């Protein structure tokens, strides 16, 4: 087996701050965030692009960090779950609604769900139930049956949640 190519420098902006790391070219954005930058809020679920647990915003667009090489994100801006709150110790309206509506249990898919819902609300401030379900259709959750996640997004968008 040939020796792996040497590490390369990757510089990205994460949650508004410039970050850099020497990574192997095959390193995924997910592994760079978790293993090199210590941002463990983004989770590995399937590592083949289905479950959405590793979702982050790349240049404002939701992507699967497990299916993007870190080098592909060179020079780009990344938003992770750690960057959703307006200030340290505070919660965004969506994060607050997730807590209020009990939109999570084990918390493992939650970062990816928040990214998907954050993106939805940025595009569509008052989504219907169908639009919410469509937006989180690529994020798998085994705890909630999605009901309270839908409720949370409604709550965050100023709509009465249908179920308690």
């Amino acid at each position, binding site marked *: 087996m040939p020796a792996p190519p040497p590490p390369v420098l990757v510089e990205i902006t994460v949650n508004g701050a410039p970050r850099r790391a020497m990574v192997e070219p095959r390193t995924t954005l997910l592994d760079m965030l978790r293993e090199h930058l210590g941002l463990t809020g983004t989770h590995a679920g399937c590592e083949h692009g289905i479950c959405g647990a590793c979702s982050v915003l790349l240049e404002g667009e939701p992507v699967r960090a497990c299916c993007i090489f870190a080098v592909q994100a060179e020079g780009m801006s990344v938003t992770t779950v*750690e960057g959703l709150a307006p200030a340290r110790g505070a919660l965004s309206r969506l994060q607050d609604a997730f807590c209020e509506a009990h939109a999570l*249990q084990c918390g493992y898919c*939650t970062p990816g769900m928040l990214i998907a819902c954050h993106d939805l609300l940025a595009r569509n401030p008052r989504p219907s139930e169908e639009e919410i379900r469509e937006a989180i259709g690529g994020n798998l959750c085994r705890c909630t*049956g999605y009901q309270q996640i839908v409720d949370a997004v409604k709550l965050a968008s100023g709509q009465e949640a249908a179920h308690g």
Partner: protein
Amino acid sequence: MAEAPRFRYIGRRRRAVEHRRFVTGQGRFAADIALPGLLHVAIVASPHASARIARLDASAALALPGVHAVLTGEELQPEIEPMLPGVDAPEVRRFPLARGVVRYAGEWVAAVVAESRALAEDAAELVEVDYAPTPHVVDPEAALAPGAPLVHPAHGSNAIFRREFLWGPVEEDLAASPHRLSYRVRWSRSATVPIETFVCTASWNDATGLLDVWASIQMPKFPDLLARCLRLPGNAVRVHFDVDVGGSYGVKRGLKHAILVGHLARRLGRPVRFLEDRLENMRGGDMQGPDRIFDVTLGFDGQGVIRAMRMRALDDVGAYAGRSPFQLGKPVGAIVGPYTIGSVAYEAISVLTNKTPQEAVRGFGQAPTNYAIETGLDRVARALGLDRIEVRRRNLIPPERFPYLIPSGTLYDSGDYARVLDKALAAAPFEALLRQREALRAEGKLAGIGISTCLEPSGGNSSFEPLFNPKNTTTTWMDSCLLRVDLNGAVTAVMATSSSGQAHETLVSTVVGEVLQRDPDSIRVIHADSLSALPSNSPVGSRMAIMLGGAAAGAAKRIRDRLLRIAAHNLDLPEEALEWRDGAAVPRAAPERALSWARLVEIAHREFHNLPPGMEPGLQEAFVWEVPGGGGLPTPDGRIQMYPCHSFEAHVVLASVDPETGKVALHRYVVGHDCGVMISPDVVHGMTYGGVAHGLGAALMEKFAYSPDGQLLSGSFMDYLLPSAQEVPPILIVDHCTPSPLTEFGQKGSGEAGYLGGPAAIASAVNDALAPLGAALDALPMTPAAIWRALRAARAAQSAPVPARETA
């Protein structure tokens, strides 16, 4: 309906205290544990279902820079003790790494340790293994046939457990019944498949002789078993329960993972982490669920009242077994479901095959059994031309008969089954569902309504251990809580197990707050490690609301009682003259003389001279609780009190089936649920929604499929399909409360809610939809392909309409 007692905090809406860390990305999962010098593991797995290992050469892998070790079963097995099954089958020994032979495709053969996970995977590809394939068996019925290849020849049979129970005069009752029918149903292999795979990190300290373990576990007795298998004293293994577990619902056992990682950490003197990738998790992670064939005969009268049942359950546990055969044991405690069936014969058979081992899955075997029973109720109705709901009503145990003793020895604590069913039907409302079904049919769709009524045994006892293994004398399955009040009056509760989404910190702080009349949000709950912990049996069997809640209440009552004694001593009043109100000791006759929380705590911590004689200073109390109603061994004929509490659920579903594609859509889903007093309603509802979604997966989508040569065909999320928000419909939960007389607040368990009756109800709806065409399915999952084949077969048989049977 018994009126629920009023509480200050219990049953009120309250944000789960766990949520804040998860929504901000500050959870602490096993893969987040970063230790200096951490090494990573990759697995070399068997590609064959059954083979001899002829040669293993790791030299090329070891030559790769950054590779620290390649461990084989030859090296590992002599160093450790085997993992043994819970049933009496001492020759069915399991080790983390195979030695000499492999028994399923995916079995771990060698472990490569390197400086990064990617490098370890590179090196794993360089490990050369030559195999000589040997005969294999993947079908559980074929495995029982004479001459079948033996998965463990030393055991002498592929039946790892087999017992026939007879509870009452079944043959006489069947013979005397005006009607009888027999049927077969098939529950296929699926699992809870958490989004987090199994992760274990371990670190050994040469100086202290201590192995620290951070693992995503949900497993009773895990630290003790791990220490025993590693040949270490229990106090040399410290399992950290403060790891957040990313979902489990039963399957996160991971003993073999932890033995492997613990051994490697000790051998290499470096911290080691093994993080399963998804294929590893699905194929070699040993987390697949029950895989059963049920053969059932029911005897019933012309009114549809079932008198007797004979059930044979054949469960394919795969190539090795831990607690999996017990998953045929738990249903003994609810073998008649919520019905008045008077006599039962139950044959339970666990079969070894060359497939991935079975592990505990939500409900611990009860959901498949409920599906088998509910199929029978539907068939009785169809056979007599009666309404399915009416047949259930005639069989449901009436409220005045509680506590109700079932033939297999379990006393059901309380229930109001018909009332819960009525509430669910009214909420649907059922008449609207009938109209919608007709409207869907008018559109050319196949449409059906599904019903199920079933039990959720809760309170996680382990009575199936002595029932299924005469050498096992387990009669306690305790749980515990330690409470400390510090000098400044802050309360800390210590629980002794990890959590995987059940909001135990919320549970404990709510309960302690209720008893002490202190704000639950002021109470901190921490997860001990295994060396500082009191005994626990982990959050299995829907037990924590009952057991941890009961232990927390017990410890809090001891604190409260202690403070009342201090107050009585200082006020020179008898204790009976005091009451506990708003966190203070208040004389009933002179409330102005109340001693505040702060004052009482100060006395306990600082003023020995003001303590009652003989009282310990400081303020801490432990409480260890035995499962209520537990403590007994089974009778010779296998009667035993299984779980203490029995929640009830009634599902009502409207489904349609696209006749061209076989795809099922759920249009309305209502579940009536009675789990007694809910401590945290949001948490109970959340688990119920999730259980229904999981049940939908088991009923329609999820299957670990195997090729005839024993290859797993669904090892990724592209072929093992998990329900998304597009498949799971909006779900309406209708609560009812019949308190349990056995628990502190009247609570019952609910961690398996939704899943226990969901698959049966969805299957019932699909079969109702297919019935007009003369098609029927008696196997889960009812995938589009399976439905399409059943429809095609029914159309082909139009001239001689016989219900199609799906056996795949």
